[in-house]
């Protein structure tokens, strides 16, 4: 018995020895990248670009997570263990996102990952998270049309941002004519498809909708702004719904300001322009233009939670001017939910946590309480803010209650019958008409 | 161009009323010149006389604005590109010696051999006895046999000149255009080069551009003096060098 085992071990050793001899470089390789998993901490992956084009937006989110972890550890960590952040830089390079995700999960053995900004980065890491069964918290407003078991979407779905914004413009500003301007990628495309369908359902005629797409980082807006002006001077109240991507916004707004398009003539409501983007512009010419978010830094709360958060954040970053924005709040909520779920199941095992998360509630920074839904999206309030001269927003409207995020848009033919339900149906894209879980092959 | 008179000329090379100008500067001005088969001709003239430009025109590197350039009495060179012209059998040695510096002497010659120059031909090329013999022979003629495996870049200036002439030989053209073959050569080398060219001239038509009058004299062939892109004088070296204008613009008193 014992001898046998020893013999086995000996044999295995020798075999291993042979293999080792045949591949020295493998050794070096394994040791170079080999990870030593520390058991006394819980590892949290941070997958945000720190260089390249997306660094502009994502660096802040990296800092946010580090800040939250810091706070949590002050409170004694989770399950009596300290949290440890593992930061990597996917460098705004989509395949690198997948590679880094894989590295985080298999090499660093993280229990959860907070990351991604662009849809494409999410799409690129998706297979990795499915394969290695880990958890991703995705904090950015996106086009919807997705509900995955391993992903939790704490940003706004189209019905939590776009639709309410349009409603506001119809109700408050009596807008009759619409310009849907966006950068040519999937989020604006889908959002505009949804809005187009929605507007038509509200009786807006085709010729009263102008759709325009521009490449990433488009910097010469003269023609388009002029077109908007022209379109807007057809006698009907006109508004621009902008899904223009972060980088192109500054020149866009500068051109708007210079060509003298005032908010009171043609208001622009943007879904990707927050406090951080405005920090790069002189906002005086933009006063009155709108943005729809689930959070604004300027929001005052009864319990002062937002004020406190801003204060702590600015002390943490040692920068009294550092602004906060919506995706940050999404991370705050997501992080809180994850902590609660972990403490609920007394484990960081992804399967347990994933099952525990739906139904978990966490306070958002605007004085409400958000809830994780079975489709892995959360409930959020929607605010419409007007740009102020100081680069902040003045909330002019809010939804009466919290809005539940729809994974699948009701306005699109492809998806109006789909729901995501990971509690009952255990399916992200369940067709309520055919009662079938699509995509499972069968 | 009149067909009759092309037939009339038996010349190996025939230039008539050639004009070319770069941004207004007339490099070649109504240049007419004939080279008989088997002839060796020396071209002299001050800098900017258009000697090299003339060669550019003949080898198809520069297209003349007007004028006739006939090879072998029939082919209009102005319509062809360098490759085609080279294939016709016009070889050229450049003013500043250009050999393939990063390749060995014998590879340089190998590349020059006038065998199949098609992509397929070179891709599936395998050396033949005949080729290597040709190369050996040329190496001997240009006295580089023992340097065959050295990099062309490591050769002395004179040796490069010779290697390039050797490449011409390997190419075995009907007409050789040799631009300043003895520039920067010692007297001995110059003498040897003269001998070499005479040797070559036995079997080829040659056009030599050279400043070195002793060299030209040594060649002892018909001389053409160019000035401002046109023929100033033509004849034996003595006739030309005694020509007033030539002395004035070129030789100096």
């Amino acid at each position, binding site marked *: 018995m014992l001898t046998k085992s020893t013999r086995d071990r000996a044999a295995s050793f020798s075999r*291993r020895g042979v293999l080792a001899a045949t591949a020295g470089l493998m050794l070096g390789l394994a040791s170079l990248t080999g990870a030593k998993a520390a058991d006394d901490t819980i590892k949290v992956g941070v997958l945000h670009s720190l260089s390249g084009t997306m660094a502009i937006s994502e660096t802040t989110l990296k800092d946010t997570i580090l800040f939250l972890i810091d706070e949590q550890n002050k409170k004694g960590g989770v399950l009596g263990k300290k949290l440890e952040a593992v930061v990597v830089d996917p460098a705004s390079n989509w395949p690198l996102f997948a590679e880094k995700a894989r590295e985080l999960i298999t090499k660093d053995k993280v229990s959860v990952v907070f990351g991604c900004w662009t849809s494409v980065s999410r799409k690129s890491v998706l297979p990795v998270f499915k394969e290695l069964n880990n958890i991703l918290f995705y904090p950015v407003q996106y086009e919807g049309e997705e509900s995955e078991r391993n992903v939790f979407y704490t940003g706004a779905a189209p019905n939590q941002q776009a639709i309410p914004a349009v409603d506001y413009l119809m109700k408050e500003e009596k807008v009759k004519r619409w310009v849907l301007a966006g950068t040519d990628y999937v989020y604006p495309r889908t959002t505009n498809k949804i809005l187009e369908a929605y507007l038509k359902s509200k009786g807006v005629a085709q010729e009263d909708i102008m759709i325009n797409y521009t*490449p990433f980082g488009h910097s010469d807006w003269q023609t388009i702004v002029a077109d908007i002006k022209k379109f807007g001077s057809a006698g009907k109240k006109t508004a621009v719904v902008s899904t223009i991507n972060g980088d192109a916004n500054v020149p866009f707004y500068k051109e708007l300001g210079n060509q003298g398009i005032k908010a009171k003539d043609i208001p622009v409501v943007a879904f990707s322009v927050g406090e951080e983007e405005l920090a790069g512009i002189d906002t005086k010419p933009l006063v009155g233009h709108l943005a729809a978010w689930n959070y604004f830094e300027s929001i005052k709360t009864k319990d002062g939670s937002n004020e406190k958060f801003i204060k702590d954040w600015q002390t943490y970053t040692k920068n009294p001017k550092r602004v906060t924005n919506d995706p940050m709040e999404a991370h705050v909520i997501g992080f809180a939910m994850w902590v609660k779920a972990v403490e609920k199941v007394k484990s960081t095992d992804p399967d347990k946590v994933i099952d525990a998360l739906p139904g978990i509630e966490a306070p958002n920074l605007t004085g409400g309480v958000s809830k994780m839904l079975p489709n892995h999206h959360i409930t959020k309030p929607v605010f419409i803010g007007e740009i102020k001269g100081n680069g902040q927003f003045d909330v002019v409207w809010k939804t009466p209650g919290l809005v539940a995020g729809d994974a699948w848009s009701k306005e699109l033919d492809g998806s109006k019958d789909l729901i995501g339900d990971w509690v009952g149906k255990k399916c992200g894209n369940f067709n309520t008409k055919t009662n079938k879980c699509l995509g499972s092959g069968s | 161009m009149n067909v009759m008179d092309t037939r009339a000329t038996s010349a190996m090379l025939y230039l008539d009323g050639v004009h070319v100008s770069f941004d207004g500067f007339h490099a070649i001005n109504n240049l007419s010149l004939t080279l008989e088969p088997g002839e060796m001709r020396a071209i002299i003239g001050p800098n900017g006389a258009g000697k090299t430009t003339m060669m550019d025109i003949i080898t198809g590197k520069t297209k003349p604005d007007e004028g006739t350039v006939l090879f072998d009495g029939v082919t209009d060179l102005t319509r062809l590109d360098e490759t085609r012209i080279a294939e016709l059998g016009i070889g050229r040695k450049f003013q500043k010696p250009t050999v393939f510096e990063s390749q060995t002497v014998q590879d340089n010659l*190998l590349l020059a051999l006038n065998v199949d120059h098609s992509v397929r031909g070179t891709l599936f090329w395998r050396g033949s006895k005949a080729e290597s013999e040709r190369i050996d022979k040329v190496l001997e003629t240009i006295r580089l046999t023992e340097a065959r495996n050295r990099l062309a870049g490591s050769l002395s200036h004179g040796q490069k000149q010779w290697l390039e002439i050797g490449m011409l030989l390997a190419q075995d053209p009907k007409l050789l255009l040799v631009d300043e073959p003895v520039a920067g050569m010692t007297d001995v080398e110059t003498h040897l080069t003269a001998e070499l060219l005479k040797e070559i001239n036995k079997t080829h038509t040659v056009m030599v551009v050279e400043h070195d009058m002793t060299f030209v004299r040594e060649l002892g062939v018909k001389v053409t003096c160019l000035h401002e892109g046109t023929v100033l004088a033509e004849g034996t070296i003595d006739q030309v060098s005694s020509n007033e204008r030539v002395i004035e613009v070129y030789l100096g008193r």
Partner: protein
Amino acid sequence: MTPHMLTRSLDRGATIFLLVVAALGVLIPLFNLLLPAGSFLQVPTYLVALWGKYVCYAILALSIDLIWGYCGILSLGHGAFFALGGYAMGMYLMRQIGTRGVYGNPILPDFMVFLNWQKLPWYWYGFDMFWFAALMVLFVPGLLAFCFGWLAFRSRVTGVYLSIITQAMTYALLLAFFRNDFGFGGNNGLTDFKDILGFNVQAEGTRAALFALSCLALIIGFLICRAIVSSKLGKVLIAVRDAESRTRFLGYRVESYKLFVFTVSACMAGVAGALYVPQVGIINPSEFAPGNSIEAVIWVAVGGRGTLVGAALGAVVVNYAKTFFTSGMLAPYWLFMLGALFILVTLLLPKGIVGTFNAWWDQSKEKRTAASAASAAAEDGVTEPKMAE
């Protein structure tokens, strides 16, 4: 490839290189699959995927070295051919998803469904068959390279001008593929692949196999390149690189030579891309980004221009450095490291790693064969004289 070309093409360095690649191709998958997870020598799957990526890059580097190192054509748009090959493979993988897409549409890929496409665009036909896709992997980049090269080389666009218009080419393609109307998934590109030839792309076995395949492709590509550069055609290419007009006056059709290698190298790049996509699991327009192409050229420079081994090595070294720097404490500073690496290499090792090594090796050994001398010299930084002025 005829046998004599093979034999002729194999010198010492080449043989060692081939052996190493072969060893990697066999051992890494074995160590990954056979050894128990967590055991000391076990190669985690993410490393297999990672090294698979490196190998694909190595093939791309080879293809660039073939035209730049030996023919002096500096293409700053080779990423385009890589990406096109990748897209061809990606389209096949998309069609393999079938009803497993989120909308369960048997024909249309998901991105077409939610952009309300009614039917499959014609250029997607046939990509459900592997052989067709495989053919396209070679054909599409090859065709583009042929047309582009035919225009450019015939009208004697050389040096910087060529480099810049190759940039223009890849940039134009980048913009084109970004457009969602173009029918290639826009910015998101093609992703969420399920299986290839019936094997699950996520499965460890498939990954190992893909890795081995990539190594095989690298070996074959290497042999092809060696065969080309060590043939007489190789000498002509070098001649073109060093003195293009001289070569013309010797009666060579320079443009057809350039066109030939350019097309061959484009096809190689395409294959590299095709192997790359299933291993990284996504192909999207950013692969067309002009920066990528430039970076690929830099791999070659780092490894040693004009030494095929160097090109491959450079690709691996630079990308390993990238992987290494982009995680851990260094993450915020990795661009400094990478940038510094590029500057230092060009300044201190103009011949690249392998080039410098060879030079040193040759010096240390007085006796040298003509062949290695030729190749050693070929590694000199000297480029087209035209551009030197």
